[in-house]
């Protein structure tokens, strides 16, 4: 188990920032993840966020809070958060919280980028 978080920018335009997120998305890692994503969105003036979450092994409410805060911020300028290739562990927590309707879900980054 990778009990830290890994994140990296895969691509960015003014349309969307594509970011890969792996590992643990919880209280210990939420702040650094949020800061990294915010910095990328800001640096590229991206309207939408495409998050490849296929490598997320574990998420708690602190992680869900990051995703929801980002969605609400992007929404102010008609932006969206799209989650790519979500796995059961993260989906389970989103369902528990009742947060699935806040996000778009796609199987690949290519499909996600066609949503805009």
């Amino acid at each position: 188990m990778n009990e830290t978080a890994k994140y990296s920018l895969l691509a960015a335009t003014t349309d969307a920032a594509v970011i890969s997120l792996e590992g643990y998305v919880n209280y210990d890692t939420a702040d650094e993840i949020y800061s990294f994503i915010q910095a990328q969105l800001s640096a590229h003036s991206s309207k939408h966020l495409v998050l490849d979450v296929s490598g997320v092994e574990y998420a708690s409410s602190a992680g869900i809070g990051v995703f929801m805060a980002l969605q609400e911020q992007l929404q102010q300028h008609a932006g969206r958060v799209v989650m790519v290739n979500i796995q059961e562990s993260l989906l389970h927590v989103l369902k528990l919280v009742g947060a699935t309707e806040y996000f778009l879900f796609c199987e690949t980054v290519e499909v996600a980028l066609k949503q805009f």
Partner: protein
Amino acid sequence: MYLNSMMPDLSSLATLIGKLLTDDSFSREQTLSDEAQYEARQRLLNAILPSITVSFAFSTDDLGVPFKVTPIMRRIAEILEPVLSGEHFLNIRLALEEVVSNIIEHSYNEEHGKIVFRFMITSEDIAIEVEDFGERGKDYSMNGVGDYKTLQEFREQNQGKMRGLGVFLVRKIMDEVRYEVVPGQYNRISMKKRLV
């Protein structure tokens, strides 16, 4: 960490319980229906195991790491995984992670501190108490906090914010949640979850 139990050998007992709850070979020789098998297991569990009480405590000195949630949760998972079935284990671990996160953030301001856990597990339910000894910066008796009926209601009050979902999630997962704050002494959260 210190570990004490009313039972002499917790780990072997935990293994046995886990086996009884998950091993289909338990009554393979019989022609009982699934439901009858399940009831037989429950009767056996009730007979041999009225309850287990486990209590243990963490302090960061014991763990030898900065006061983080993840190492604490790893220890809790080691205790709970053998005695809880899959989905119950995942959900209860998550609820406990939310409680631990709140203690670290609000009681100890991410500094060193002690957390005491008590688990009382029967075949029907699990009761959990978590105590810390920090100074709560605010009333943590949760009057009103986390009482949102829906996520939409919660988000309307917390637009664009990352924090605060933990208590909401704990209440979603557990059947009973109670807070008790005795200033200068302890903060305690008591929770209960039915397992059947």
